[in-house]
């Protein structure tokens, strides 16, 4: 490495070290964010509040109700007197669902006749409503099955259903949504956290006039870019290791693929992100503008178009094509392949290639703009 590149890198590293806020933002905050998001950003719906309007008041209806509240998915939200009270409970949000048990429930149950319960579900949160309905049906299916088995046992036989699904969930057997989210979070945090401080570093030199001082020296644009980027790359790699460690300790996140590939993909991804920030800093003239562009250009696409929150598969065609430009999308795909699946290069070769092209592209652009600025054209 050239003397000039080294001088810039050392200076940059010193500046970061002297600025505890930036350092904290770069290193500690991502791990904390991962923990916060990991716990909060869960799509598992649990503890659905269910109120019961029991017209039957029989042993059978009580058994059905108690069975429901045995699971962690439902939690009692009180007994209701009449239908208007049920409407009030749903309106006021005290209950997400109301179970209406008819007057003859206990008698029909005892007689083994066809029986019905009504479920009123608040559909304002479609996802939660959908999950609640699924759990409820599952609970009923389970109750039916138990009942049928009892009947069969009474007749001395065993029931064999004609068709059964044997589900085996790979990569994440417990279907733990926090674990499937983690790779996405890692990709998101790495893109967003460093964005601000890195893009400020060049603009700050513009504002203070030190960039001018570098312009009159014989520093080449490539040396400047390398010197600026290397310390941040090192710090961000350390940050990533910290995040992955946090994911492992807190959420039992596995690493099934090769660590070497993970490092290579991370370097390419981080370089792409740093390139974007460098490009931003060549466009912006004040730290404030750089901050806003950086936040906008990295945060929203990395959150919305990266498969982190919204599945790309269910996006409209045009939006799906747009996601190709979002590096987080590709890195998240690679991370899922490496962390959860332990898949080989065939599974994530294309995303890695796209990331390489992306990094080369933004660096080329940033270096060209910087070269022109260093020449003062």
């Amino acid at each position, binding site marked *: 490495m050239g*003397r*000039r590149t*080294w*001088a*810039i890198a*050392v*200076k940059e590293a*010193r*500046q970061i070290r*002297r*600025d505890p806020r930036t350092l904290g933002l770069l290193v500690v905050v991502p791990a904390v964010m991962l923990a916060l998001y990991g716990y909060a950003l869960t799509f598992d719906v649990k503890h659905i509040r269910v109120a019961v309007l029991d017209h039957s008041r029989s042993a059978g209806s009580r058994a059905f109700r108690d069975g429901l509240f045995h699971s962690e998915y439902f939690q009692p939200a009180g007994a209701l007197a009449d239908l208007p009270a049920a409407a009030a409970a749903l309106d006021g949000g005290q209950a997400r669902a109301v179970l209406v048990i008819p007057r003859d429930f206990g008698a029909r149950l005892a007689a083994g006749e066809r029986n019905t319960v009504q479920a009123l579900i608040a559909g304002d949160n479609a996802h939660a409503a959908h999950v609640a309905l699924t759990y409820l049906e599952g609970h009923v299916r389970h109750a039916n099955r138990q009942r049928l088995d009892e009947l069969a046992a009474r007749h001395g036989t065993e029931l064999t259903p004609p068709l059964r699904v044997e589900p085996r969930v790979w990569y994440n057997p417990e279907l733990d949504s926090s674990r499937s989210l983690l790779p996405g979070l890692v990709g998101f945090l790495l893109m967003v956290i460093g964005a601000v401080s890195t893009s400020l570093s060049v603009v700050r030199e513009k504002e*203070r*006039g*030190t960039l*001018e*001082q*570098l*312009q*009159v*020296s*014989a*520093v080449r644009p490539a040396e400047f870019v390398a010197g600026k980027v290397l310390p941040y790359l090192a710090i961000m790699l350390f940050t990533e290791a910290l995040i992955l460690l946090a994911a492992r300790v807190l959420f039992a996140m596995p690493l099934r693929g090769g660590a070497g590939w993970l490092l290579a993909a991370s370097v390419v991804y981080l370089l792409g992100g740093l390139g974007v920030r460098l490009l931003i800093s060549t466009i912006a003239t004040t730290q404030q503008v750089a901050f806003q562009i950086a936040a906008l250009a990295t945060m929203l696409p990395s959150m919305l178009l990266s498969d982190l929150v919204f599945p790309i598969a269910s996006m409209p065609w045009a939006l799906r094509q747009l996601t190709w430009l979002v590096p987080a999308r590709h890195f998240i795909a690679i991370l899922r392949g490496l962390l959860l699946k332990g898949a080989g290069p065939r599974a994530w070769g294309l995303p890695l290639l796209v990331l390489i092209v992306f990094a080369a592209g933004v660096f080329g652009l940033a270096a060209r703009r910087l070269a022109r600025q*260093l*020449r*003062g*054209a």
Partner: protein
Amino acid sequence: MSPGPPSPAAAAAVRTEALTRRFGAFVAVDQVWLTIPRGQICGLLGPNGAGKSTLIRLLCGILAPTSGAAWVDGCDVERAPECVKERIGYMSQRFSLYGELTVAENLRFFAGIYGLDRRRAQQRAAWALAMAGLRGQEQRLARELAGGFRQRLALGCALLHEPPILFLDEPTSGVDPVARRRFWELIYQLADAGTTVAVSTHFLDEAEHCHTVLLMDRGRVVAAGRPDELRQQGLDGVVVEIACDQPERAVDILAQAGWARDPALFGASVHAVVDDARAGASRARQALTAAGLTVQAVRPVESALEDVFIHLIERADRAAAAARRSRDH
């Protein structure tokens, strides 16, 4: 490195031919021709916006000329800016240092930027510390230094690679008078040691420190020469000082008389430029006495550079206004 006589461009430290830089429709530097011989201190003077900083930036190779040409130490600023950059030191009025780095770290950084090896970097850093009066302060953060020390440290950083030519863009704005004087002593020492210095300033008294002075206005060089030459020739006449009552009326009367140029209040008296000291003095006395003023004294005085510059800039402004008028009609 070809043997033989140096090219004419290499003979002077700085030379320009019709150097011009536009920003859109605005002409910041307009057809500037100049030559700065080696080892000289050349002062660039002029009001704000006259184009001094732009000219310096053009010469440093950090701004490309729109037209014309310039050579610094023989290197073409447009075709070989890298060659220029290796031969110059530059310091702006912002004393651009890294405030969160220590004195020693700033020196080490700039030594690295200029590509000095370790031994030379140490030697030059020691020189810069002594020059800036910062020995023993190596571990202080640059932002904690007082203005004068920051200025001298910035100068030291700009000189680490011992450039033959030094460009200073308003280096003394924002420091106290004592620091200003010390700074000029340093510049003299550098020039004595053979460094060519081009320095812009808006302090007119600093022009007296320079070997040659370029007076700029609206992007053009309106006068150039040694300070004493400019004092003698810049006015096309002699300054007379008139002490009288009602000096403001005296200015009006002289302005209308026609034979006195640039009458202006100067303290409690009036300065005006006349062709001949003796004839002008008696004419002024007569005219003012005839108008009912009491004239105490009229005597020729040595013109200050300030008189010359005001005179030259007003003349340039009048010429520019006349050119505009004739173009508009």
